[in-house]
C-alpha cells in the first residue's frame, strides 16, 4: 500500500546571494502523522519552512501538494492550500481573548454583528477536541495564559481552520516540563485527528515521544527520511552531527540511504 504525502518537497535549492543554504532538500509529510524535522543549528530548517510557507521563494525544486504540483508565492497562498505555520513567536494578540485570537481576520457574522456564541462554542469545542483541559474560559485574554496554553491555542487555531498541514517551529523550546508534556500530547492529537504535522525540534526526546517519521538535515541537505520506529536515538544524533548513519553503511537501515531523491510509495502508510 502506498500513500501520497500531503506535502512533498523535492530537490529544493535556496541561496542568499552567493551562499547556497539549501541544496537537494526533500521533505514529505503525511496525513495523520507527525514528521519531525531535525538538524543542527544552521542546518536550514527554518529556511525550508519559510520556503514551504511562501515567505521565501525557492530557487529550484518541486513543490507537490496532495500529489499536484503547486506554486506557493505568499503566506496567503500557503494558507489557501491549508498550510498553517505556528511560528515560535506565535503571533497571538496579547490583549485579545482566546476566541478573538482563534477567529482573528475570519470572524463569523450573523447579519451585521459577530456571532459570538457560535464562535465561543466552536473555540471551546476545538480545545476540548485536542484534550486541552487546563484552560478555564475561552474568554480569558491570551496575556493570562501560560506558555503551554498559548501554544495550545495557536495549535487549536490551526485545527479550527481545517488546515491539512500544520508546521510547528520549536513549540516546546521555551516551556517547562508540564507545559512541554501538554504540548506534545496536543501535537500528537492534532495528527491523530488527520492533520499532517511537521515538528521542528532540537529535543530528541520530544521527537521520539511523538514522531512517526524523522527528516534529518545536515548542512543544508536532507540526509535521511526514516520511520521513527526504525531508528535509535544514537543513529539520529549521528545523522544530525555528521550527516551519516550511526554504524556506517551496514548499520543503517536500508531505507535511510538515498533519500534526497524521490523514494515514495516504498513504505506502508499509517494504519
Amino acid at each position: 500500500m502506498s500513500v501520497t504525502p500531503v506535502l512533498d518537497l523535492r530537490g529544493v535549492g535556496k541561496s542568499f546571494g552567493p551562499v547556497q543554504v539549501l541544496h537537494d532538500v526533500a521533505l514529505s509529510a503525511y496525513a495523520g502523522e507527525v514528521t519531525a524535522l531535525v538538524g543542527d543549528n544552521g542546518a536550514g530548517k527554518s529556511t525550508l519552512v519559510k520556503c514551504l510557507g511562501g515567505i521565501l521563494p525557492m530557487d529550484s525544486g518541486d513543490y507537490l501538494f496532495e500529489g499536484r504540483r503547486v506554486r506557493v508565492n505568499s503566506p496567503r497562498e500557503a494558507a489557501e492550500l491549508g498550510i498553517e505555520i505556528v511560528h515560535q513567536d506565535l503571533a497571538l494578540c496579547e490583549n485579545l481573548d482566546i476566541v478573538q485570537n482563534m477567529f482573528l481576520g475570519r470572524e463569523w457574522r450573523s447579519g451585521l454583528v459577530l456571532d459570538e456564541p457560535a464562535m465561543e462554542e466552536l473555540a471551546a469545542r476545538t480545545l476540548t477536541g485536542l484534550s486541552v483541559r487546563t484552560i478555564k474560559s475561552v474568554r480569558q485574554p491570551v496575556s493570562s495564559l501560560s506558555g503551554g496554553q498559548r501554544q495550545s491555542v495557536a495549535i487549536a487555531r490551526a485545527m479550527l481552520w481545517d488546515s491539512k498541514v500544520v508546521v510547528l517551529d520549536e513549540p516546546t523550546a521555551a516551556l517547562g516540563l508540564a507545559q512541554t508534556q501538554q504540548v506534545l500530547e496536543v501535537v500528537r492529537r492534532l495528527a491523530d485527528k488527520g492533520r499532517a504535522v511537521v515538528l521542528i525540534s532540537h529535543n530528541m526526546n520530544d521527537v521520539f515521544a511523538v514522531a512517526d517519521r524523522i527528516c534529518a538535515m545536515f548542512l543544508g541537505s536532507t540526509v535521511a527520511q526514516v520511520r521513527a520506529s526504525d531508528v535509535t536515538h544514537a543513529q539520529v544524533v549521528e545523522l544530525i552531527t555528521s550527516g551519516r548513519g550511526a554504524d556506517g553503511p551496514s548499520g543503517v537501515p536500508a531505507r535511510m540511504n538515498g533519500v534526497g531523491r524521490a523514494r515514495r510509495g516504498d513504505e506502508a502508510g499509517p494504519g
Partner: protein
Amino acid sequence: MMRAAPSQEEVRRHNLGTLLRHIHLRGSASRAELAEGMGLNRSTIMALTSELTAAGVVREELPRDTPRRAGRPSLVVRPESTRVYVLAFDIGVDRLVAARVGLGGVILERREATRPRVPFDPDELVGALAAFTRQLVRRTDRDAVCVGAGAAFSGTVRRADGMIRYGPNLGAIDVSLGNALSRRLGLGLTVSIGNDANLGALAEHRRGIGAGCTDLIYLHGDVGIGGGIIVGGRLLDGVDGYGGEVGHMVVNPSGRRCACGSRGCLEAEIGEHALLANAGRTGAGRVGRDAVRAMVDAAARGDAAARDALHRAGDWLGLGVANLVNVFNPGMVIFGGTLRDIYLGSAAQVRSRLATSTLAAPRERVKLRTAELGDDTTLVGAAELAFSEVLDDPLEVLARLRTTAAGRLPDRSGSNA
C-alpha cells in the same frame, strides 16, 4: 455447544442492551443514526427507544446545537445521565476516589482522599468508601437510580467474587473486598472489583485514545506497574481474572528484588521505589506521583542523577514494551498514571529499545500514546465495569432495582418491562 435459535424475547433484550450501549458509549444519536449503526430498521429502533424512554434511561428531544440548518431537525436519543448512574471507586496506593458516574460516562460528582502509606486495613477502607457513598447518594435527585457499583484496585483480583488475592503495594492478601463493600454500602447492589490496569485498558479502549483500536495494551504506573491487554476488542484477563500482570514480567534476571519475591520484574526496575532510589531522591515525604513527577522535572532541568535514572527506566520500559509488541502485535500501547510522565520523559530510550529489540513486522503499526483520560482512566474503567450489568439487560436490572432499596425509579406509565 449447540443452542436453539434465540427467542423473540431474547432478541428484544439483546437489542435493548445494544441500543443502550450505543448511546452510553457514543453519546446522543438520532433514530436514523441508530438504525444505521445497529443495522436494524427504523420501526424496530422506534419500538426500542420508546421502551427505554418509558423505563427512564433515555429521552428523546430536539437537538440543541444545529442553529443554522434549514428544515425540521429530527429527534435525538440522549442518555438520562443524571437519573441513571453508577458508583465508581478507585483504590490506589496513595489515593481513594469515589464518584457518581452517569449513563454516557459523565462524572457527575466525586470525592477524593489521599491515603497515607500505612498498613492496609480493609475495615477502614470499606468505611471510608461507604462514607463517600453516603455523601454522593444523598445529593442525587429523588428519581435517580443507582444501577451498579464498581471498584478499581491496585492488585490481583479474582473475577468470580472480587476477592483481592494480592496487592503488594497496598499490603493486601486474600481480602474479600467485593463482599465487604457490597454489604457495607447496603444499596442492594453487588460491588464488582477489577484490577486497576485492566479497567484502565477498558476505559481507554472505550472512551479514550484507544477508541476504535481492537488490540491494545495499557500500562499503568502507580507505585508498581500494572497492565491491561485487549485483544480483538476483549480484555485478556485469563482463567480467573489475574491476567495482564506485565509489571511482573522479568526483564532483568539479575536485577532488583521485587516485592512479589521475584527478581528483576519490570516493576522492580521502573516502579516508584527503583526510580527514586536510582535518582538518589529517597527520604521523608518523597513518595507517590508528585515525587515521580518532581524527578522527571529535575531530569529535564539537567539534574544528572535524575536524568540517568530516567533514561535507565526508559531503557527497561522499552524492553518490556518490546516483549509485549513481539507477543501481542498490538495496534497501540498506552502509557497511563506515572508512566505517562516517564514515557514522555524517556521516549528516546523507549523507542530506541523498540527499534533494536522487536521484530520489524509486529512493530510496524504500533502506536505509542499517553492516556487520554488522564488521572481518571482507572476510575472511568471502574464505572464501565459497574455499568456492564445494566447494559447487558436494561429492563431486567431496572425492574429488579425497583423492588429494592436502591430502586428509586418513578413508576412511569407505558413501561411494559
